[in-house]
């Protein structure tokens, strides 16, 4: 009989809260399946809404939703692994989600620090007004690039390791078939979708904010970024790299915790198989790094081969298709970058579009702007809360102050209860 133990300091005298999974596998399988599905949906929705944001910090916030979705998917994989008594899948899933919790803390912290510096320096969080910051604040830009790659789950950074663990757990479950298989497949597909959408989102964020030319002149009173703001970013970026570079250590780091959550003893042979896979993963990551260096050296060599001074590359304008007077405002904007996706998912996102299309020849002016309000806030919580408030004002007549009415409630309750009782016997 496996059992999870949630132990919080205040429950010590009350003993431990046991969920017995031999019972779970039967009765609670539907909830698990339901929850995993829900988390998959959350993850996708989170990244979709992030995609549609123009405010850098809002964008990051929505990515927290997405990452929590990923974490929950890992948890779901772990629970499924337990209820299908596949300890290795359980351990992989739990370890993955726990590691992702840690990783998310690292790279999301990093990204928020960068966003803060950007706002500090450029005086705005509106992506559409930014651009070309990599030239003015290179180290922040580099940190943001690292964070973006990490949160997108790209090797050789830490995000990839945790996601890989979750993938591994899910693939193990797919081989089982049944409900677990179905959920696992759904989870895998949604993880893949989340990954690519996140890629789109962060190429947008990094590309539009830090690359190209500034879209709006940065205010003259822009603050400088002090070293004290840079060091933490540097540290976090290094941490992203470090965890990504040593997957086995990262796994070991979470293994004991995952084992405790999973409760079940995992056969050493299974752990060994996981370990061998992880060593393969390490090899792959270092291959990537090695090849990257080799190619870089090759590139340098090719440049050198053309001989010293002549090798200085020519600098010119971006190819402008022969257009006479290109301006930064011609750059692709964030909203146009994600337009194909937002239009593809507009059923869900329901963006609000204010546009003034150009009319006639030599149109005096035209404008287009779109913003995406939060689905849950607008369509679920807002209405719900207003409804409850209205209800609470409506029930006030119960306490109308008339004692006769109160006595009536008393006797009516009695009569109703007696009637109900007598009707049943």
């Amino acid at each position: 009989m496996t059992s999870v133990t949630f132990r919080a300091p205040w429950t010590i005298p009350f003993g431990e809260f046991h969920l017995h999974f031999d019972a779970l596998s039967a009765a609670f399988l539907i909830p698990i399946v339901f929850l995993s599905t829900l988390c998959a949906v959350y993850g996708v929705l989170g990244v979709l809404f992030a995609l549609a944001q123009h405010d850098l910090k809002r964008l990051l916030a929505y990515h927290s939703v997405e990452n929590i979705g990923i974490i929950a998917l890992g948890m779901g994989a772990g629970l499924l692994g337990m209820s299908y008594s596949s300890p290795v899948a359980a351990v992989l899933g739990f370890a993955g989600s726990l590691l992702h919790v840690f990783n998310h803390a690292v790279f999301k912290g990093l990204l928020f620090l960068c966003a803060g510096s950007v706002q500090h320096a450029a005086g705005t969080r509106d992506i559409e007004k930014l651009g070309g910051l990599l030239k003015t604040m290179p180290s922040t830009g580099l940190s943001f690039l690292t964070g973006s790659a990490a949160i997108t789950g790209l090797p050789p950074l830490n995000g990839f390791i945790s996601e890989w663990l979750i993938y591994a757990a899910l693939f193990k479950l797919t081989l089982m078939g049944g409900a677990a298989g179905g959920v696992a497949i759904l989870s895998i597909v949604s993880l893949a979708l989340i990954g690519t959408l996140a890629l789109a989102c962060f190429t947008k964020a990094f590309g539009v904010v830090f690359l190209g030319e500034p879209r709006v002149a940065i205010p003259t009173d822009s603050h400088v970024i002090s070293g004290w703001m840079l060091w933490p970013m540097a540290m976090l970026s290094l941490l992203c790299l470090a965890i990504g570079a040593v997957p086995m250590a990262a796994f070991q780091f979470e293994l004991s915790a995952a084992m405790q959550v999973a409760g079940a003893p995992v056969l050493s042979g299974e752990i060994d198989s996981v370990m061998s896979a992880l060593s393969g993963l390490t090899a792959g990551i270092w291959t990537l790094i090695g090849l990257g260096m080799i190619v870089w050296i090759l590139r340098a060599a090719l440049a050198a081969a053309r001989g010293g001074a002549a090798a200085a590359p020519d600098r010119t304008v971006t190819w402008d298709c022969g257009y006479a007077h290109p301006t930064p405002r011609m750059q692709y904007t964030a909203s146009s970058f994600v337009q194909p996706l937002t239009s593809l998912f507009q059923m869900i996102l329901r963006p609000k579009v204010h546009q003034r299309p150009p009319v006639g020849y030599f149109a005096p002016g035209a404008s287009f702007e779109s913003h995406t309000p939060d689905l849950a806030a607008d369509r679920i919580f807002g209405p719900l809360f207003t409804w409850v408030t209205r209800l609470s004002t409506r029930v006030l007549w119960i306490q109308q102050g008339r004692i006769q009415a109160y006595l009536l409630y008393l006797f009516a309750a009695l009569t109703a209860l007696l009637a109900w009782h007598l009707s049943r016997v």
Partner: protein
Amino acid sequence: MSDLPHTCLLLIVLCNFYVLSTGRLANLIRILSVEGVLLSLIPLPAALAGSAHAAILVAGTLAVKGVIMPALLMRALRSIDEPLDSRPIVGAVYSLIPGFFILAAAFVAGLHIPLGDAFDPLIGGVGLATLVTSMLYMVNSRKAISQVIGFFIMENGILILAVGIRHGLPFVIEIAILFDLLLAAMIFGGFIRRMHEVFTHTDTSRMRKLKG
């Protein structure tokens, strides 16, 4: 003589109807005392048969319900100088008709009260009728004092039902309840007088400051 209890019960039913129909508070208090007397007579046969408990009970009930309680209420009534009629929310006629149906229903229900075979359905019917009538009356009445009267009638109904069960309530309990009622009557009387001092009226349906 053995049929005395039933006679009393039937008279109590008539009293209930009178309570529903009359509008004058003084008469209500009088009828309350009459009910008290009738109630006290129910255990009389047992008392004559020589049960000391029953005798004390008769005496006690007679004293408390028949004399002291009405006296206290009457005193309270005298102390408030306002129209001495209870303007019920629903007029006499319209409360008599449901009163009758209540009686009918109560007599039917009285046959089915599951308190053993020894349970006298007539007692049950009258008790229930009194109970429900009093509830109706409490809900219907505006004046504080008439609500109190309704409360005491309700109590009478319950005591009638108690008479019905096999050996009646234990003696000590009966006495305790009587004592409690005495206390209640004093509190009610005092309260009504104070209420009149503060509000200059005792119309509870106008006391609606506290809401929500």
